[in-house]
């Protein structure tokens, strides 16, 4: 059944979609100043990778890729939790979550 989907849509379309999503994520990270949007963009990149993993997992008929995706999602959830907590802490300090304002790392 899943094999049919792949035959109908084609693996290269998945690759292209995944690439587009990843690029959207990268540009989101690079061009948006709002830290929450940056975090969201990172999530998009992760999901692009997840999509690719699942697609290849089906293509090779190997479940390992799908198992790996579960791990990625768990890690992503943890990462978002920590990231948001950090953002809250930062907001309390400088009343802003604009990453251009975070220049205290300057050496």
């Amino acid at each position: 059944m899943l094999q049919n989907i792949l035959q109908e849509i084609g693996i290269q379309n998945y690759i292209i979609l995944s690439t587009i999503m990843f690029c959207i994520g990268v540009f989101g990270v690079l061009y948006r100043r709002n830290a929450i949007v940056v975090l969201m963009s990172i999530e998009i990149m992760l999901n692009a990778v997840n999509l690719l993993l699942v697609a290849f997992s089906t293509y090779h008929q190997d479940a390992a890729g799908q198992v790996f995706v579960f791990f990625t999602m768990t890690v992503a959830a943890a990462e978002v939790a920590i990231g948001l907590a950090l953002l809250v802490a930062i907001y309390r300090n400088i009343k802003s979550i604009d990453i251009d304002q975070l220049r205290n790392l300057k050496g």
Partner: protein
Amino acid sequence: MDSTLVLILLLSPIIGFLINLFFGKNLSKSLSGTIGTIAVGISFVVSVILFNKVTQSGEGITVHFFDWIQVSNFNVGFSFLLDQLSLLWLLFVTGIGTLIHLYSISYMHDDENLHKFFSYLNLFVFFMIMLVSGSNLLIMFIGWEGVGLCSYLLIGFWYKNQDYNDAAKKAFIMNRIGDLGFLAGVFIIGYLFGSLDYLTIKQAIASGQYVDLGLLAFAAFCLFIGATGKSAQLPLFTWLPDAMAGPTPVSALIHAATMVTAGIFMITRMNFVFELTPAVLNVIAIIGALTALVAAFIALVQNDIKKVLAYSTVSQLGLMFLALGLGAYEIAVFHVVTHAFFKACLFLGSGSVIHAMGGEQDMRYMGGLKGHMKITFITFLISTLAISGIFPLSGFFSKDEILLVAFHENKVLWFIASAASVMTAFYMFRLLYLTFFGKFRGTEEQKSKLHESPSLMTFPLIVLAVLAAIGGLISIPGNSWLNHYLEPIFIGSRPHHAVDSTAFILMGVATVGALIGIFLAYSKYIKKGQLPVKDEEVTGFAKVLHNKFYVDEIYTAIIVKPIYWLGDFFKSIVEVIISSIVFGTGKLTNFVSEQGKTLQNGSVGLYLFVFVLGFSTIVYYLFLA
């Protein structure tokens, strides 16, 4: 047994040194002086015991403690050789050392750093014992450097006076020049013989082993340069008169009786080497005679009581070197011993005078002390007669033997030495007349305080004066105990000059010469009552003498100034070049990091951008290119 005795001999002064160094501050002054004196006294007792042993058996004692340096078949042992020569030196070093320690207790009693003084003196005695009793040249070198260090410490003992510090530095640096020669000589000898041990070298030479005589002569010459530094000969003699900046007991012990004779000890010790190099011996004889003459000339016009004695020491050392250069080692040793007695006595006597005068050293402000200080005067008179060479005091015999040898070997050297002796008689009696005769020329306050020194100071004076009087007995012409005693340290039998009519005529000539010197001094300073003029009024040749032949000025012009110039050159040219390279490297690094710093501006956006760019580049080159 022997090794225990040698250990006591060596360790006793060093323990005295350590006690006074670490606990001296908490000890009372008399106690720390007593400890210092006893420490040297023990060494003296041990020396006497060892001396008895060696005179009875007639053989030197060798004590080996451990192997010090071992490189393939080159061995230097930490061992000591107590034979006739080293024991003779030990006897008068520790004996006179004890007397001078005793004297210092009283002389230095006002000094706040008395414990330091005694610890340095003990250290000096320790190094002197090392110097004379080591069994190889390297142990001698330890002592050689050590006594130089102690000399430096003691000349600059009153360190608050910058002139004294300069004098100390001058002594140290001049000695270093000599030490370099000594060390070079040691290296060459080690290279030639594969050993530094006296007995091994002596054995090798006695058995006729082939050595490169040219190189050996160079080694002997280097050793002699070392001796000129330590024993204040031309051209390195200028430090000794300046060394009088130290306390008077130091001048007596180090700069008259013991340390300055180290050069003579070393050459006598290595006599078998010098015997193979007659050219070097000639140089030694000439340098010795010239030193005797030059120093005697300078001493004629000095007004500082200690400076006169210092130049007289240089002059007498010159006579000893003359004897060495003529191959008459035992006569040089004889003069070392008698000179140690009367010169130590003279210095201690001058210390007693300075003590009474409240620190005044200029003879123009003394005079008439005869009545105030009887014991000092009598002992001083005996020693002055001894150094002038009046029969039957010790100086007569030793000086006469030197003149006799010189007469047989080289008439010119004999004439120079005789002239120096006549001048010796003159300037010593000039010193005596100006100090003890005539009217007192100091201030009223000084006059009211004139006093004979306490018995702790006069006792050493009396002992030394007795020794100065009878010291000549150890080597009476014709039946010399000393010559016989020293025979084992030489190879083969020694030449002897018979006591013939020439010898008696020479004795007569020398005595008449001395009497002429005394008479000249008498007529000038007693009969006519002349006084040395003020420093500014000195004219003519006397001015040259007064300025010590301008030797210091010449050295300043040809050595010190060029060195300063070289220093300036290095500072202004070479250092600028080197420092610009060094600082340039630093500045470059700084500049690069300044540039790098702007990248690290804290902007998260930029970091991310660079990160993505970098990652993309890696991916491109790894997978896509």
